């Protein structure tokens, strides 16, 4: 089931990037794809009925879910946040430069400048 959620979110994000003219909406779509991939990766390490991978006296050692995908996702989330910050900075600069974040309006403004 969780795979389907990841695929649906991925599709929504991809559609948003391709169809939207508003750069901010494209950025939001990108973060949706990011989330979809993170859900997908975590779901790969999931085992039904298994414990969280934390050593303690009450958790059986042999019955952990795979901790590696979770570690990968943690790193991927941090990288995603970094990219989001850079993209937001670029959008602010674009808005300052062209007065809009709409791709068509930016293209028209660029033609006027050139």
């Amino acid at each position: 089931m969780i795979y389907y959620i990841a695929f649906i979110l991925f599709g929504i994000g991809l559609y948003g990037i391709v169809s939207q003219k508003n750069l901010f909406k494209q950025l939001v779509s990108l973060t949706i794809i990011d989330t979809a991939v993170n859900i997908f990766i975590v779901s790969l390490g999931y085992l039904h009925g298994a414990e969280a991978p934390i050593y303690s006296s009450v958790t059986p050692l042999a019955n952990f879910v795979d901790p590696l995908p979770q570690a990968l996702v943690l790193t991927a989330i941090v990288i995603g946040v970094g990219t989001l910050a850079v993209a937001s900075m670029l959008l602010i600069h674009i808005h300052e430069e062209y007065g809009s974040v709409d791709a068509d309006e930016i293209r028209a403004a660029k033609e006027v400048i050139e």
Partner: protein
Amino acid sequence: MIALLVAVPLAFGFATVAFPKLSRYILPFVALFNLVLLLGFVHPSQVTEIGKWPAAYGIVLVLDNVSYPFLIFVNLILFALSISATYEDKLGVLLLVLTAALNGLLLTGDFFNSFVFLEIIAAVAYVLASQNKNSYAAFKYLIFGSVAGILYLIGVVSMYVYAGTLNMAYAGFVASPEYVQVAGILIVIALLVELKILPLGLWAPDVYSNGSTVTPVALGSAVTVAIFYLFSRIFFNILEPVKPMPVYVLSLISIVFAQLAAMKQKTLGRTVAYASIAGASTVMAVLSSGALGVEKIASAAYLYLFNEAISMFILFTIYGYLNHKGFKNNSVAGIAFSLASISLIGFPLTAGFWAKINLLTALFEAGDYILPAILLVATVIEAGYLIKWNVELWYVDDDSETEEMELPFGAQVVVLLFALALVIVGFMPDLVTAYTDKIASHIFDFKTYFDTIMKGGM
């Protein structure tokens, strides 16, 4: 010791965040330190286990006969860039981080680690691309690059699912070719975006032509070379190659389109940007030409890459400083520009001549006639627009009202030395082919790579 190649630039990058001016002066010393370390204190083959976790459980950094020449070349470009480029102080920190990430990418023996370094390179590249009020082009690059990064991540995770490890050598050892096809395809698409193969590289012309002396040089020379290394490492050294035909055809189309687009451009920046795309597409076409495993072809491809990287460094640096100003008052820049142009075209007694002749000979011997035919047509087109720009810039009517522009002394020295290097290699190609032959002979040798990494491991 090889971890210092990543740790030192990264440490100085973080230490100088509050002192951006200092980072600018530290950058050449860090790049020089890397070169001295590589040339004098380390040698292939060495493996560093991060956190003393042996392969295939932990991350390993690998210095072997393939990564070693690439590291020297990339650090040489970064050292030259630190001397020749003019940039805002704050970019010094970014270039230090870029140096660390490029060295990390060239050294790592771990799939996920390569993803992390790729993303660090990409983050720096987006900021560099936004220089000179070029934020819209940088944003387009960010969208392309982020989707590519996501595909690379899915490819890496698929590899983990199939092979049960993220260690490159061990994954190559245990993964059967039919299972890693999906991972291979996803990784190829991601790398094609970064290598600006059209249409996936449509972000490149706007980014490369932003008029900066840093952006196109760092991305077009250093980053491109490092990513070609990663491509070779994954698809020649570790995995059974993904069926190369679609990549080959795409690269051929990319060569033709890029050369025709370069001819049509009205600004020098965009012309050189498209020429750079055509160059990268040519190297990719050769590497995916179906004659995989032929050392002579691979060696010729790496020589071609060397010629492209040096020539593009010269052309982009001169464009960054002079824009469309002529060479009347900048004869040093003019000579370097012309030498780089004739080397790109492949005139005799330049590095480009040996790159092209070796490529044609090797491809003919392998029975591939399509790529040589396209390469020859592309060369004619390339000669046309490069000669046109040379004539235009040498004989431009420079009206005296406009501001006088010239290259700083450091940039003049670097572009002239690089141009002379192209000529010297033209006379003595063995200076470079000794290295490219060595890379080619080791890049297809999985057993040596595996043994190097697993020594002391599992």
